[in-house]
């Protein structure tokens, strides 16, 4: 009786290691072959890879589960099935990433030339032209947004960590978290609503874009700074107090420098988050084809809006506009990834050890 219990519940032995990969390959090949047969015999001219993948995977899972259940037992079979499901989930997430990266790179290099980075779109119709006005606009608007958000963000984080006790501090923490969820378009609408009071309807200004972006950046900066300030050991603060250093000097000269690397990382991540925002800039900074260095006057072009308008407002020569859109997308992605990389490097090399 014990032997029977064993074999049905715990199984008699483990599956050989080669079985699983062989089954996987086998079922995918069979599914592919089946689709080829269908295609050559029937009306569908092309082979659709989704059914190939789906049926191959389904066949493989069922086969492995059944074999495993017979040989290894129910528990191990379930374990194998879950492993398949979890690995599938992961691959499913990687596929769009690979597809995106491949598409952006292959289509973006078509216009990734010197002209793209040295020309604006002024007087350009059809081919040629570039995104310099958009890149300068992005740098200016993001720069101003950073100038606005960083002081406010760091001071608010200092308040939360060093000074805040009681209801107001709890409210502020709660609403900082809520603020991270403000949709970017609402931030743009707010900037517009703010400016329309002073400048009348139809206002478009680079500064408005900076204000909308800072609304999105501030919560990220606060959160990151708060985490970094909390990590600073209390002993450092106590040592400073013991030496008679006033609290404000302690914060400025002891706590902040210790956490500076982490704060810098947080700021870079916040910049990376907002530099790709299109919607608020579309509403309030507008779009233009010419260079505009003045954020206080008239429309200013930014890189994500450049990508969007190149796609949405194509001229007669459609391919030229699409090429510019993909080149802009590639530039944008590179900027964001470089920012993320720099953030990680700063955090790795400059954060206080131990």
């Amino acid at each position, binding site marked *: 009786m014990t032997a029977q219990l064993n074999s049905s519940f715990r199984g008699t032995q483990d599956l050989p290691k080669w079985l699983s990969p062989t089954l996987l390959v086998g079922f995918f090949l069979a599914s592919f072959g089946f689709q080829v047969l269908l295609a050559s015999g029937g009306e569908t001219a092309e082979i659709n890879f989704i059914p190939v993948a789906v049926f191959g995977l389904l066949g493989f899972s069922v086969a492995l589960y059944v074999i495993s259940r017979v040989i290894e037992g129910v528990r191990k079979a379930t374990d194998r099935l879950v492993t398949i499901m979890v690995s599938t989930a992961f691959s499913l997430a990687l596929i769009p990433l690979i597809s995106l990266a491949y598409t952006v790179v292959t289509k973006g290099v078509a216009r990734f030339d010197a*002209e793209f980075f*040295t*020309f*604006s779109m*002024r*007087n*350009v*119709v*059809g*081919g*040629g*032209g*570039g995104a*310099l*006005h958009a*890149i*300068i606009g992005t*740098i200016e608007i993001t720069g101003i947004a950073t100038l606005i958000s960083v002081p406010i963000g760091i001071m608010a984080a200092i308040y939360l960590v060093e000074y805040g006790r009681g209801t107001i501090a709890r409210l502020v923490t709660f609403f900082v978290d809520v603020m991270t969820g403000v949709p970017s378009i609402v931030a743009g609408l707010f900037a517009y609503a703010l400016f329309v009071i002073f400048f*009348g*309807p*139809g206002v*478009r200004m680079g500064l408005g874009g900076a204000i909308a972006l800072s609304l999105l950046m501030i919560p990220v900066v606060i959160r990151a700074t708060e985490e970094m300030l909390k990590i600073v050991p209390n002993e450092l603060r106590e040592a400073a107090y013991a030496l008679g250093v006033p609290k404000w000097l302690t914060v400025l000269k002891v706590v902040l*420098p210790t956490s*500076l690397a982490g704060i*810098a990382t947080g700021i870079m991540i916040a910049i990376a988050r907002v530099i790709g925002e299109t919607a608020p800039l579309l509403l309030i900074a507008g779009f233009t*084809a*010419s*260079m505009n*260095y003045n954020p206080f006057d*008239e*429309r200013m072009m930014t890189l994500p809006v450049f990508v969007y308008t190149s*796609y*949405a*407002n*194509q*001229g*007669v020569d*459609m391919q030229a*506009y699409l090429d510019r859109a993909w080149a802009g997308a590639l530039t944008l992605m590179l900027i964001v990834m470089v920012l993320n990389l720099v953030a990680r490097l*700063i955090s790795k090399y*400059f954060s206080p050890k131990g």
Partner: protein
Amino acid sequence: MNNILKLGALAAVSTLVLAGCAANEDVAETPTSGAETPTEAVVELAGTLNGSGASSMAAGQEAWIAGFQIANPGVTVNYDPTGSGTGRAQFMTGATSFTGSDSYWKDEELLEAFPSCVAGTMPWEFPIWISPIAVIFNLDGVSSLNMDGATVAGIFAGEITMWNDAAIAAVNPDVALPDLAITAVHRSDESGTSKNFTDYLSAVAGDTWTVGAIEAWPAEFGGEGAQGTSGVVSAVTGGNGTIGYADASRAGDLGTVAVKVGTDYVSYSAEAAAAVVDASPLVEGRESYDLATNIDRNTTASGAYPIVLVSYLMGCNDYMDDAQAELVRAWASYLVSEEGQNAAAATAGNAPISAGLRAKAQVIIDAIK
């Protein structure tokens, strides 16, 4: 820490270097393509001219501004494509000196005050931008189809659903129509193109197309919605058996429909589009400097293509600021001139206005003071 500061300084310096003028925005501007300089010598003009309005002529305005600024380096012209309604509203607040609009002045708007103009005077308007709207479709191996107005209306109203429907096959005897469902693509944004297209549909097939001229497509007619002209063209190109309407200059390789005018089937062309504007009556009860036109969609004039979008240029007859008057005179003359219209046509694909319309417009322009 030092490293961070050095990195930051390097970034700042490289930014400043990058911020050097774009290579194509030097003082002596040369056009990269398309825009031609006016041939006659112009008096040295200087100043800034601000206008706003319809986005349908935004591409044309780009070409016109480029050409005009090259011939008159002391002038800066700004055109803000905020949309026809906002353009007219901004003109009525005095923020702009001229405006472009897909629709002519309404009677009640003309009773308002116009701060840029001397009190008591009214603005002029005349058609400046004629854009033929092509009915484009994507069917393998078919480049042109004949259709009458009722058929087109039936397709876009969702009543004719298959390509090999009897109505289409009857007037296209030598085309092999497939047994494929029709997907009608329309503009999902409010646009003058939709308005002019549906104006045509309701004029020629009022019992099929019952909702009149609208800017926002009614949901009950189904079909695919796309944003902007580019969106419609992409959607039609990307599907099989799709049909849509868009600015004719963007038709590209897609098949186009020849619509029935009188007894013939007329494909779009620049001359045909300009012809229908000339063949259409002016709006009643307007002054001689107001050339508002009601496009006759049911015209039977031979060789006229009735599906057009006409945009107007509007300005003051008597400007408060004489310097602005001078600038507007030169600007408007360039826009109606043959060089100007051809420059825009080369890059933006509009249909140049006819000589007759040009002459009438020039009379109005010469009277601006």
